[in-house]
């Protein structure tokens, strides 16, 4: 794609890499370009290699690729780390006056572009703005109108005063002018376009937070953990505007128990964490189900087990969310496949939770959480949001659900498994519930018949949901192709682009991306119709492949990745062809 621009800034953690990257992504987005970002970062605050990559195009971009066109290297290591992605014509911007780069010479075919970042930044008012100088230089290289960058800087520094904005805009201008004076723009071969399209730019955690507010969430309790923390940071301050509250708790046990308490009191409530936090919450997860409390529990996965690799991608918690917890626990497991689906699936999760009075796992992953992506604002259609609170019984109906002694029956064994629910404060509705096995009044029992009745009742909710809801999938590619690729979670974007690469190699595939993990769609017919079925997932053992094999009694091929990095589109295309009987060369 000639209009594609793959840009990155890399350096040490603490160098302002993230904020610089985001400013550039916003500048591109405001210029009507589609953007897809990714981050490499280490689990430390200062020091350690970190990079922010921005891919942009006038076409839709869904993934990262193994290609870098413009690289701002604040350290020598940045070049080394990205050497594989640099190509003939790649431009490397660095500070030629900094000793750490003084012996630097661009590898063959790449353009070495020293810019006195620090000195120019000082001229503009402070060395701290050296990254902004580099952004100005990048605008000139890409022939990208710098006024878009000016707007992004206004947005970023708007609350810090006009002089800060002015200084930063000046820094960008000095970077631009330096390149204009010292180099010939035609040397670079980049000439990216702008459009009149309006886009919003956000990441998966933010989309989950926004979905939660849209869905009427009013109480959020959580403990900071990578990569789920952005959900809490997004909600803090915003949830309060709607009469809600964000509670940073002492630990994950407290987080889920507070959310449970708020949910019992009638609030739509959520907690978000990552794998280690899910482990800690497992006991209360059972209580949520046993007490039939509606609750959304978000797991933004990272590499495990144990502390694993906290800042790296993995989809290793599927088994935990499907099967975790002692005993047998009815639940729903919903997994968004794109940043925008993070919004939509969060709203669905709240509705399932209240309609069926169950815990709902909303399973996202690090790749979605840290990916900023552009969308048409219409993709977040607030008018389309519907809130279904299920069998919530008010004072006018409560008589229907009282027994002969006027006691409310919170666990009444209705045929569809869903009991009436009444909120504290409702006159005549006082009742208890418990994690112990209980009767229809919520009182402890070990009566064999009641035990069976209540277990069946809770499990019936899932059966009812299977019938009432559409547990469908998203489909791409050629629906008649002999090769079927299945995936879940964040792999969708890379796989959608991989279809394009595969097309060029004359490999036609049908791609099914599954957002519902339990209940999940029955894929028997689709698998039956294909010659090759390949399951793509970011884990070592193929947890999703296992459950689909179990469902369909068919052996499936697997493409797994577990080095901590998400799939790239070109890489994925190659891995797919390797699984075919007649592997094809994929042109990239």
């Amino acid at each position, binding site marked *: 794609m000639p209009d594609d621009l793959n840009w990155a800034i890399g350096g040490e953690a603490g160098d302002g890499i993230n904020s610089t990257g985001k400013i550039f992504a916003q500048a591109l987005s405001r210029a009507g370009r589609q953007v897809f970002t990714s981050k490499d970062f280490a689990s430390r605050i200062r020091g350690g290699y970190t990079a922010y990559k921005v891919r942009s195009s006038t076409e839709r971009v869904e993934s990262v690729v193994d290609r870098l066109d413009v690289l701002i290297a604040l350290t020598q290591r940045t070049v080394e780390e990205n050497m594989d992605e640099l190509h003939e014509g790649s431009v490397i911007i660095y500070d030629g006056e900094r000793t750490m780069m003084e012996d630097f010479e661009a590898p063959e075919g790449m353009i070495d572009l020293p810019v006195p970042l620090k000195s120019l930044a000082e001229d503009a008012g402070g060395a701290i703005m050296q990254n902004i100088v580099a952004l100005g230089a990048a605008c000139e290289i890409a022939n990208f109108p710098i006024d878009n960058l000016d707007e992004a800087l206004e947005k970023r520094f708007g609350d810090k005063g006009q002089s800060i904005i002015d200084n930063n805009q000046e820094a960008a201008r000095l970077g631009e002018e330096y390149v204009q004076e010292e180099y010939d723009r035609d040397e670079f071969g980049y000439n990216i376009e702008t459009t009149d399209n309006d886009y919003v730019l956000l990441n998966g955690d933010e989309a989950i937070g926004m979905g939660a507010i849209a869905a009427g969430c009013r109480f959020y309790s959580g403990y900071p953990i990578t990569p789920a923390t952005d959900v809490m940071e997004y909600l803090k301050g915003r949830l309060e505007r709607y009469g809600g509250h964000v509670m940073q708790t*002492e630990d994950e046990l407290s987080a889920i*128990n507070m959310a449970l*308490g*708020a949910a019992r*009191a009638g609030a739509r409530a959520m907690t978000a964490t990552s794998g280690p936090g899910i482990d800690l919450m497992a006991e209360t997860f059972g209580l949520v189900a046993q007490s039939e409390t509606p609750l959304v529990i978000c797991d933004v996965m990272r590499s495990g087990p144990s502390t694993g690799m906290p800042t790296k991608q993995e989809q290793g918690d599927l088994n935990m969310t499907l099967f975790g917890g002692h005993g047998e626990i009815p639940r729903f497991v919903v997994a968004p496949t794109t940043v925008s689906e993070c919004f939509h699936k969060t709203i669905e999760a709240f509705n399932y939770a209240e309609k069926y009075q169950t815990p709902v796992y909303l399973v996202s992953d690090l790749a979605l959480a840290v990916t900023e992506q552009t969308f048409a604002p219409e993709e977040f259609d607030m008018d389309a*949001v519907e809130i279904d609170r299920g069998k919530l019984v008010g004072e006018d109906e409560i008589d229907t659900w009282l027994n002969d002694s006027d006691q409310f029956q919170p666990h009444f064994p209705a045929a569809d498994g869903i009991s009436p629910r009444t909120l*504290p404060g409702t006159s005549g*509705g006082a009742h208890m*519930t418990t*994690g112990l096995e209980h009767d229809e009044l919520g009182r402890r029992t070990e009566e064999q018949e009641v035990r069976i009745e209540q277990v069946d009742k809770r499990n019936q909710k899932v059966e009812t949901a299977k019938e009432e809801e559409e547990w469908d999938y998203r489909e791409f590619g050629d629906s008649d192709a002999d090769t079927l690729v299945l995936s879940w979670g964040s792999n969708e974007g890379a796989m959608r682009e991989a279809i394009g690469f595969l097309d060029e190699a004359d490999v036609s595939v049908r791609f099914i991306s599954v957002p519902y993990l339990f209940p999940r769609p029955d894929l028997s017919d689709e698998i039956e119709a294909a010659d090759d079925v390949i399951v793509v997932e970011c884990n070592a053992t193929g947890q999703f492949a296992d459950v689909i094999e179990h469902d369909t009694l068919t052996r499936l091929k697997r493409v797994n990745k577990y080095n901590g990095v998400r799939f790239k589109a070109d890489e994925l295309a190659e891995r797919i062809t390797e699984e075919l009987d007649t592997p094809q060369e994929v042109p990239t």
Partner: protein
Amino acid sequence: MSSDVRFTDFKSDKQPTWCPGCGDFGTMNGMMKALANTGNDPDNTFVVAGIGCSGKIGTYMHSYALHGVHGRALPVGIGVKSANPDLEVMVSGGDGDGYSIGAGHFVHAARRNMDMTYVVMDNRIYGLTKGQFSPTSREDFETSTSPDGPKQSPVNPLALALAADGTFIAQSFSSDAQRHEEIVQQAVEHDGFGFVNVYSPCVTFNDVDTYDYFRDTIVDVEDEDHDPTDRDAAREKITNDTEYQGVIYQDEDSVPYNERHGLDSNMADIPDGAPEDATDLVREFY
């Protein structure tokens, strides 16, 4: 709320399975009376309990109630109160539940100062698991898991609460029904986290911390002209070895968490769709 609520309205029709003579009967009665005396009724009251003998209280009381998991009752109560500040929230725990597995939550609940009441039935032993030492057991207390005594210092719950900036710290004895009721009532009336540690003897497994022991040793702070607003005096009471009952410390300027954070609406009330200005949330990402 109705003015003609009697404390028996808080009683369920279930007969407690606590051992005959258990201190928890008196503890619970005082809680029900305190609730009725302060104008509450079962429909606006939420009782949370953890696990153990104390955890059974939700079954024997009539109110909105949740019997949760071991040691986690306080966070549940904080969630309930946050979501609906009109509710009277009372949390009940035991010494094992509250000071062992739940000790972390206790400290944070005290400093968070949510407007609720926490009543701990402290019998200084694990009763429901049949007689192991608890966090408040004496250093030389012989049990099935401490044949020579636990050989570690007992937790001092009042000291923990004071160290965590608790705003209402009290102790009572379940057998002194009148005083126990008064003290719990003061905890309910307190603006903030009202904490009462209740000596609630276990007649089956604890032959040391018995009714007779407490009757013989307990001292009412009122008899010593104690000023509960004096923090230094409270610290002295909490750290000397006397078994006290009464309000040991009360911060009269306490402003509860819910008030500080403006939690004054019922979070159960939400619109049928996204909030009216929700598109502004999208526009923030331009």
